[in-house]
């Protein structure tokens, strides 16, 4: 029996009345990759934050390397040999790689000495683990996959034996994710311990040795990965059987509802993000846009829905132009039957400080049924909100609760209910299930299919390849602002992955 690298005993943590962690026991063996899986809000991040010293457990013990250890700050965790790679990187964007690596661990007052010391240390790490990064590259000029590598280097540089990764593959292409997994395996072979937090079942199956499942703040099971199945894990996570694949019939595409021609969009820094994109969406079909985050998908749908000004190109809605290069007004587009579920529901799709009912009319608040002269028709708005709560099973069913107090899945349902219930002809959806729990994903997918079957045109943008493949009738792949390929829903993940990485395009150029 191998020695335990980490042992958590009876961990409890409450936030007010919410018990985020209840009597958690966890044992991670040295030299293994241990997966922790669970829905959003299951308490995974809280548990890891306790281990890394962001939060203090209300009760319970943490043992690292067999010794009881009290971890009050991240510095304590680092001293105990624990390193963490966060979902959102903690890097100084305009520093070089090496500056980021030594940040907070400079060791001496003059930088030159510590930088040269760090340089030789980085070379050693590169040799041992295949973690290749140019130490003098500026962080913001590196692709996300490499930025993540810098985070791992940071942890190793501080001499960590135990590496925690929080949802590491959310921002990576399949190829980058594979490379990450190779690195993790190499770390394991060197005797390091890896804890991998994810909600992606496939990753768990591919790489971990053992897996623990969390649900509603409790640890419901720990399994040897070789002795479990995806179905069993999904069921443990949700507490009931889940349909992982969406059931849908044949699409019956009709006339063109939305037509985009040679659309070019720049971001706020003036970088061309969408570079002459043309596409069509017909009534009764779902067109999915696949791509690694940051390849222009966001700017594309923002331009179509009138939130971001385009540089050039035309967009036709029902054959009539949208003034995307001038003063397209999202309010007017709503009147014309174009609804938009934005990617960023926290800052764009919702006002988190508002009551649920107020958000359930956001953007439609100037419709006559919600108004009485210049005044809001409060009764009508609340009646409408309660109806949507019922129909979309939004929980808690309280239309006066602040929106910030709903879980991610329920917040997304508020947005979807609002946009779908206005019966638009065209629905543009960005990342419909980002940060949404498995149960709600199933529900959202069904609603989108229902929209399609009702003869609506749906344009779907998602970085979840599985989602794109299971929902779309046609798949467009975006890379570096261009549509680099169109495939049917039967396209293999590998094929799409290559397109997403821009491989075909490079070959064509040669």
């Amino acid at each position, binding site marked *: 029996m191998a020695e335990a690298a980490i042992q958590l005993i009876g961990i409890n943590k409450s936030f*007010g*009345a919410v018990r985020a962690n209840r009597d958690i026991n966890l044992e991670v063996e040295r030299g293994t990759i241990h997966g922790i899986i669970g829905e959003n809000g299951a308490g995974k991040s809280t548990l890891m934050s306790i281990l890394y010293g962001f939060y203090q457990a209300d009760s319970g013990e943490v043992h690292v390397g067999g010794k009881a250890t009290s971890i009050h700050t991240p510095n304590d965790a680092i001293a105990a040999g624990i390193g963490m790679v966060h979902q959102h990187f903690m890097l100084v964007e305009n520093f070089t790689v090496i500056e980021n690596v030594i940040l907070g661990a400079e060791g001496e007052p003059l930088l030159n000495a510590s930088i040269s010391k760090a340089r030789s240390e980085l070379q050693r790490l590169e040799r041992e683990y295949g973690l290749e990064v140019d130490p003098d590259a500026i962080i913001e000029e590196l692709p996300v996959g490499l930025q993540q590598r810098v985070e791992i280097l940071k942890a190793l540089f501080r001499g960590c034996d135990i590496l925690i990764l929080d949802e590491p593959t959310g921002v990576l292409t399949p190829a980058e994710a594979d490379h990450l997994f190779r690195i993790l395996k190499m770390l394991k072979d060197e005797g390091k311990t890896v804890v991998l937090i994810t909600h992606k079942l496939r990753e768990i199956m591919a790489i971990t040795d053992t897996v623990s499942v969390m649900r509603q703040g409790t640890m419901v099971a720990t399994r040897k990965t070789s002795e479990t199945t995806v179905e069993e894990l999904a069921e443990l996570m949700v507490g009931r059987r889940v349909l992982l694949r969406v059931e849908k019939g044949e699409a019956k595409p009709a006339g063109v509802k939305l037509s985009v021609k040679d659309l070019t969009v720049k971001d706020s820094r003036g970088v061309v993000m969408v570079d002459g994109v043309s596409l069509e969406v017909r009534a009764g079909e779902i067109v999915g846009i696949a791509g690694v985050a940051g390849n222009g998908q966001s700017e594309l749908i923002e331009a179509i829905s009138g939130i971001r000004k385009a540089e050039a190109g035309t967009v036709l809605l029902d054959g009539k132009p949208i003034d995307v290069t001038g003063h397209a007004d999202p309010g007017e587009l709503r009147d014309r039957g174009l609804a938009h579920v934005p990617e960023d529901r926290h800052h764009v799709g919702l006002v988190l400080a508002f009551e649920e009912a107020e958000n359930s009319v956001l953007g439609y*608040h100037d419709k006559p049924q919600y108004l009485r002269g210049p005044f809001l028709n409060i009764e009508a708005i609340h009646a409408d909100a309660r109806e949507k709560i019922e129909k979309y099973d939004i929980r808690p069913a309280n239309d006066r609760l602040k929106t*910030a*107090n709903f879980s991610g899945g329920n917040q997304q349902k508020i947005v979807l209910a609002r946009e779908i219930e206005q019966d638009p002809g065209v629905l543009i959806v960005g990342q419909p299930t980002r940060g949404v729990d498995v149960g709600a994903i199933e529900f959202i997918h069904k609603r989108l299919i229902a929209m399609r079957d009702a003869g609506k045109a749906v344009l779907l943008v998602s970085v979840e390849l599985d989602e794109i493949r299971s929902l779309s009738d046609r798949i467009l792949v975006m890379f570096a602002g261009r549509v680099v390929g169109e495939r049917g829903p039967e396209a293999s993940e590998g094929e799409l992955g290559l397109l997403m990485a821009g491989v075909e395009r490079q070959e064509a150029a040669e």
Partner: protein
Amino acid sequence: MSTPFAKLPRWADYGLIPLINLLVAFIVAGIVVLLVGENPLKAAAVLVEGAFGSGQNLAYTLYYATTFIFTGLAVAVAFHAGLFNIGGEGQAYIAGIGVAAVCLTFDGILPWWLTFPLAIVASAVVGAAWAFIPAYLQARRGSHIVITTIMFNYIAASVMVYLLVNVIKPAGSMAPQTRDFLEGAQLPKLGWLFEVFGLSVRSAPLNVSFLLALFMAWVVWLLIWRTKLGFEMRTFGFSPKAARYAGIGEARVTIVAMLISGGLAGMMALNPIMGDQHRMQLDFVSGAGFVGIAVALMGRSHPAGIIAAAVLFGALYQGGAELAFEMPNVSRDMIVIMMGLVILFAGALEHMFRPTVQTIFASLSPRSMGVPAPKGEGA
């Protein structure tokens, strides 16, 4: 990541926490009083007595409060739209021209109840016009409204000195002020209201603009929480991106919110000019525009909170004046320190005691806390 603190019941949020903040402010103020060699308890008694002890004192407190309600509402309205209007001082000052113009024109012709509505409109229009320029510059040119409104305070001050000294001052007069208004531009006092309770206001200048202030507080509440415009302002104030998404025009909301804000600040001019002095003097605003910022901050930009905070600051003004009179060691500057402490603890350090209070509440009755669901990405 989940919010580390659960919700508090409303009464604790809006009642208990401000009370604790206030208490701490007064304790620290008491230490300052102790340092200058006076008895803080006695000073507190003098202060409270001075602010509320007699009909006249109370009327003075409410007279000051009237002014602060207007300027507080002005700051709050802009704040709901995410705009920080520091220019209430200048907007109120310039609005004095509107009030004076109406009063000087009609005070011999119309009774007060006809002059008053005209003056209300004039003050609001002129105040709004002064706020329009920074609003336009922010909406169309991207000049930051905090900077421009501050600068416009100085411009207003200079313009008013020029006008009062060179244009408005009656010929042959030594004082930079308008002539005294006739009866048609003098607002009635609210003495009758006090007499109902058997109190006497004597010379206190509390006048009907106090009622106007209360009415405007109600109007602002309606505007913010019950109209489409208020909904759009709040959306924009919380999240400009969400406003853009919802089809709410940024420029329009910015300009309209600032017009309303400037109009409310402008109405402040009615109180001292028509209600008290019956003429427009140099520097009649005397910092009320800035106190309005503190009032709005402390009143959490809610009209009810603003009225309460305005009365508090009115009490500090009035009680402080009595205190400075009674205790020679306590100067007027000490009162400013005291107000500063109130602003510090109730505004800037508003959340200092919140975690402690929440912990206490959570341990007392977990069920009273509401159920904030776990939230956030990748929990």
